[in-house]
């Protein structure tokens, strides 16, 4: 990266060898992953959800979501016109559930990116540099690990105000410590290998060691962890939205459950309003967990030994 200016033929060759090797490794992982039934089922469900989320503007006419233009009776049971019934203002629950997938998945991904970037940066820095910087970084990590998530998220979200980006930020900033610990342990393991010592002896700087040697070796674990974190992030979004901290202008599965519960859907037994968003959450979180565990079984050396 920093030395892109002086590209020598020999170096490009070395790099292309490295990339070929990485592509082969990825192909091996995929071949092994495909043998896991759990992982494949999870992957299929995920693809279905992502396709729905992307296509939802086409599938659902935005007018259907406008409270003032709703055509159905409030809280009516499923019928031919409304296959999943209506909400408290007469909108189709099916349309809401389809549209809700967008915010839930978007917030899930945004929060995960943030969480993984912070967690990996902390973990690699702590593992690579050691000494007092490691103590300080791990002290901060432990603090975030021990502070109860939801009270912290509530305080942050109330102060920042409800919006989609703020919710993603709050989830991201509270969910990274687990990643940091995991990545630190892996960095320490990689650091003790002889080729790092060789690179250092040849004069490689910290940046070179981290980007060329540590990161590629830690990356598989980061990836498996990322998939598991998306599941947690989607659940967290649901919880925060249920507590009324989500973006008031956007429909998400959590905000649907919030309005269902606060308008008394539970006491009149309006199951059609409560079940669809909940089942959607369970399915997508389950799918992410299944993919993450299957990936972990392939990529985590410690788990691989067990089989």
């Amino acid at each position, binding site marked *: 990266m920093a030395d892109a200016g002086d590209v020598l033929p020999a170096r490009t060759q070395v790099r292309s060898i490295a990339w070929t090797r990485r592509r082969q490794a990825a192909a091996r992982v995929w071949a092994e992953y495909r043998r896991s039934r759990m992982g494949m089922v999870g992957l299929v469900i995920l693809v279905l959800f992502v396709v729905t989320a992307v296509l939802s503007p086409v599938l659902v006419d935005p007018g259907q979501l406008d409270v003032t233009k709703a055509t159905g009776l409030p809280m009516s049971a499923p019928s031919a016109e409304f296959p999943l019934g209506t909400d408290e203002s007469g909108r189709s629950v099916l349309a809401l559930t389809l549209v809700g997938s967008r915010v839930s998945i978007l917030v899930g991904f945004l929060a995960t990116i943030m969480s993984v970037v912070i967690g990996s940066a902390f973990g690699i820095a702590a593992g690579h540099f050691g000494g007092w910087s490691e103590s300080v970084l791990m002290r901060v990590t432990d603090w975030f690990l021990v502070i109860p998530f939801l009270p912290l998220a509530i*305080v942050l979200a109330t102060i920042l105000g409800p919006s989609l980006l703020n919710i993603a930020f709050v989830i991201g900033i509270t969910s990274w410590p687990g990643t940091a610990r995991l990545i630190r342990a892996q960095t320490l393991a990689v650091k003790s290998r002889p080729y790092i010592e060789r690179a250092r002896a040849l004069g490689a700087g910290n940046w070179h060691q981290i980007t060329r040697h540590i990161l590629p070796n830690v990356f598989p674990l980061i990836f498996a962890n990322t998939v598991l974190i998306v599941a947690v992030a989607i659940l967290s979004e649901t919880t925060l939205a249920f*507590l*009324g901290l989500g973006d008031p202008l956007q429909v998400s599965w959590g905000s649907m459950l919030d309005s269902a*519960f606060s308008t008394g859907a539970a*006491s009149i*037994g309006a199951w059609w309003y409560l079940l669809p968003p*909940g089942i959607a959450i369970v399915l997508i*979180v389950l799918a992410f967990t299944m993919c993450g565990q299957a990936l972990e079984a392939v990529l985590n050396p410690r788990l691989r030994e*067990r089989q």
Partner: protein
Amino acid sequence: MATATARARPRLRVRGLSGMPRYVSAKVVGAVLSLAFVLVFNFFLFRVLPGDPAKNLTRNRLVPAEQVQALQESFGLGKPLSAQFTSYVRDTLSGDLGISYKFRQPVSRVIADRIWPTVLLLGVSTILSTVIGLLIGIRGAWRRGSLFDRGSLAVSLTLYAMPEFWLGILLLIAFGVGVGAFPGLFPTGGLSSAGTEIWSLGGIGDVARHLFLPCLTLTLAYLAEYALVMRSSLLDEMGQDYLVTARAKGLRDALVLRRHAVPNALLPTATLVFLNLGFIVSGAITIETVYSWPGLGLLSYEALRTPDYPLLQGVFLLFSAGVIVANLFADMLYSLLDPRVRSG
């Protein structure tokens, strides 16, 4: 058999205490630092936004002018930051957390009234979810691949994927409100029925009936993770050589499991139970909201819907302090049970 039992028993005994003082002092210093960090964080949290924090916190909301002024005073605006900080620390440490907007009472008194219902709910459900989760995990790992194992794995993963408040709402409909011709079996909310004297035999039964559904929800929501972790750490142990040795010397399977594998596999799970306290607190907030259980969780919800900042800060401080102290105890207990952590 009796001799085997007698010989195996010392396994669980607390072994030598070398390295204990150093370990304990390191952990206590860590916990104190965490608490101090919470204090500082809480102080700056309400001051990071540019401009007047009192106005920022009340923007777009109808707040009487006197409340804005009270807020400005409580922030000590106009005084230097260091003076604001020292007065904040002094007030907080002496238990003065400000006045709640909603209840118009000192925050510390509002909180004190709500602690015990939460302790009762979390205590009972933590114990139940730990015990049941561990038993399921042990059985699943021991009979790996059996119908029980596959079934419990599927149920655990599904429970783990559920938002706990959604599970709560479903149970509320099924057993509280009633479905179709089935009447609700349990009360739908609150701590006790109106007009019941709590400290009587009937009153305790009444509270227990109210406790049942929220407690069931939290137990189901949390036992899944314990079952999954116990299963995987027992599977790790079962690959170890010492278990082969134990079997080779002729011990019965049940004994190998009970005396050798489980005690070792318990250690990581025990850490998790305490690390999870932070998440259990989160569960309390949503479940108490669903069942109108009058504890700290419902109080947080009321505070955030108002929004009542002094109360919100107070609850946050208390939850954080509680979890930090509980983790400190867990570390102590852990070091008594497993001498290896002291040298690490």
